[in-house]
């Protein structure tokens, strides 16, 4: 694992919250994520997992330390450049799907690709359809996003996260709202993505089975990394 390409790296990330009192929510977080790695982040509720994920996402820029993606320093870049980096290199899956309710599933999946303007409209449509197929949703493609079940919506949001073939997919409790069948489906998809196309997944999770099945698990406690490896008691 160690001799593979480093896709994401943090150097001593620290972050404070000031409301209601100043406290250090992240403390000297340093780790590396490798291409094709399925990495899970675990820890008690309130340990700072989501906060760390938002720092990695480039959406939260208010931290100390450094963040690198594909060996490029991300920390300190301008908002518009960060938006472009997110568009190209990062996919997101949250506990909630955040689909645009007025658009069809297909259009929802297409949006990040349309923003990227790398492919023609027809190609984007074709690729989005392929991604939906990957998640077993080809029959739902033209339905409005709001008409799908919760599990289906979450799968559409995964298709959206991977439409631009990002190097990294960041997930915050992606199976938190799902039943066991959908959880399994999502996990399988993630597993396939990392194995087949060498993309990296960093997923915050509460689900110990989910964590156990991943390649590596980082455990956070009070904003610090307490273990880099699997150590489930």
């Amino acid at each position: 694992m160690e001799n593979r390409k480093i896709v994401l790296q943090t150097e001593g990330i620290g972050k404070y919250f000031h409301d209601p009192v100043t406290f250090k929510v992240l403390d000297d977080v340093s780790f590396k994520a490798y291409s094709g790695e399925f990495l899970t982040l675990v820890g008690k509720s309130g340990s700072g997992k989501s906060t760390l994920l938002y720092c990695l996402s480039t959406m939260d820029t208010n931290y100390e330390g450094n963040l690198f993606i594909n060996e490029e320093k991300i920390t300190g870049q301008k908002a518009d450049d960060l938006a472009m980096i997110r568009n190209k290199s990062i996919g997101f899956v949250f506990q909630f799907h955040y689909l645009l309710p007025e658009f069809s599933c297909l259009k929802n999946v297409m949006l990040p690709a349309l923003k990227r303007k790398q492919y023609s409209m027809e190609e984007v449509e074709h690729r989005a359809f392929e991604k939906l197929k990957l998640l077993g949703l080809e029959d739902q493609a033209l339905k409005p996003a709001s008409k799908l079940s919760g599990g289906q919506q979450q799968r559409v949001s995964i298709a959206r996260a991977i439409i631009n073939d990002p190097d990294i997919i960041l997930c915050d409790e992606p199976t938190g709202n799902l039943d066991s069948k959908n959880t399994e489906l999502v996990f399988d998809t993630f597993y396939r993505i990392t194995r087949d196309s060498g993309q990296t997944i960093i997923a915050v999770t509460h689900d110990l089975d989910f964590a156990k099945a991943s390649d590596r698990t980082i455990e956070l406690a009070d904003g610090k990394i307490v273990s880099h490896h699997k150590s489930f008691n």
Partner: protein
Amino acid sequence: MKIKNVNLDIALTHIITRKRQTIVAALGVTIGIAIYLFMNSLSSGFTMYSRNEIFKNNAHIKIYKEDKTSTPLSYTTANEPLPILVNPQLLSESKKIINPNRLIEQLKEESSITHVFAQVNVDVFYNNGKTQLKGTANGVHILEADSMFDIASYMIAGDLNDLAENKNAIIIGKGIAENLNLRLNDNITVSSSFGVVKLLKIKGIFSTGNSFTDKAKSYIQQSTAQQFVKEDIAYVTTILANTKNQEASPQIAEKIQALTPYTVEPWQVTNADVLSGDLVRGTMMRAISLSILIVAAFGIYNILNMTVMQKLNDISILKATGFSGRDVITIFVTEALIMGAIGCLIGIGLGTLLILALANVYMGPPVGYFPIYFDASIFMKSFIIGMLVTFFAGFIPALKASRVDPVEIFRK
């Protein structure tokens, strides 16, 4: 529907899926624009009407000899050791313009001047039996005067040509006819302060709509007027000139002033009171109509603000997946502009109907049809101002949307 531009696509989808809000917002602009267009056309109509009134009686430029006031004090000189004090008073000099033909020839050469003619104004009394009215007789070549003032258009009886052919003819204002109880082809006694009395035949009656003018003004032949003041054929009191561009009259007057010692007065100076009235009315109309438009735009602001508040999730995920702040602004401003454009177009249609309805209201003489004026430029201006106001109404919520912090939203 396949739209290449993804921001436009999102904006249109919001507009289409929120028809009710779109219609409400557009309707506000519709009413605002309709009123704006209507009021501005009214204002232009009133201004046009008042201009027409002015030009029934005024040339663009008037050249005359101004009354002089005697200087109150003659200063000490070597010859006159004592200063002399005199009460300031009007000097009773003749109003005669010397060598008018030379000036008229010079004016005719100016390319900016379209009409020039000389006039002899005489203060007279109109008499019928014991009744007497004071007024001014204008000694003119009536056809020249008609080409400037379009007198024929407000004649209510008689014919201008009768005056052109008859030295003893007179054309009088409607007020004179009514006050002296006179009709067409009646005789009227006209006397001047020089003791000349003439019996003239009424060959025409005009109504300018200005009761003051109609009660005092008459047209007679120039030679008849010269006889009233016991002067020869060279006697002229006023030179009138029209220009190609009435608004430029003050500048042209300034140029002419260099050619002559007499007073050269543009119509704007003669009618300063009317113009300032027009200005106040115009400003008020503009202010009111603009306020209504701004209130209408507030509707767009409100609805877009609401949309932004309801779409925090959508905005956040767009930003997360790589849409920049500028993209978000573009999306919401586009929505505002689409609502605004729909509102503006319907509003211009509605405004046009209002204008046409009023333009067909007959007010009776001397006004005729309701004075309302509109041309392409007023429509263009309404549309542009409508879109501008819409833009700002949309920009504020759009800016707010672009500043949404997705992290804050995702945490909830």
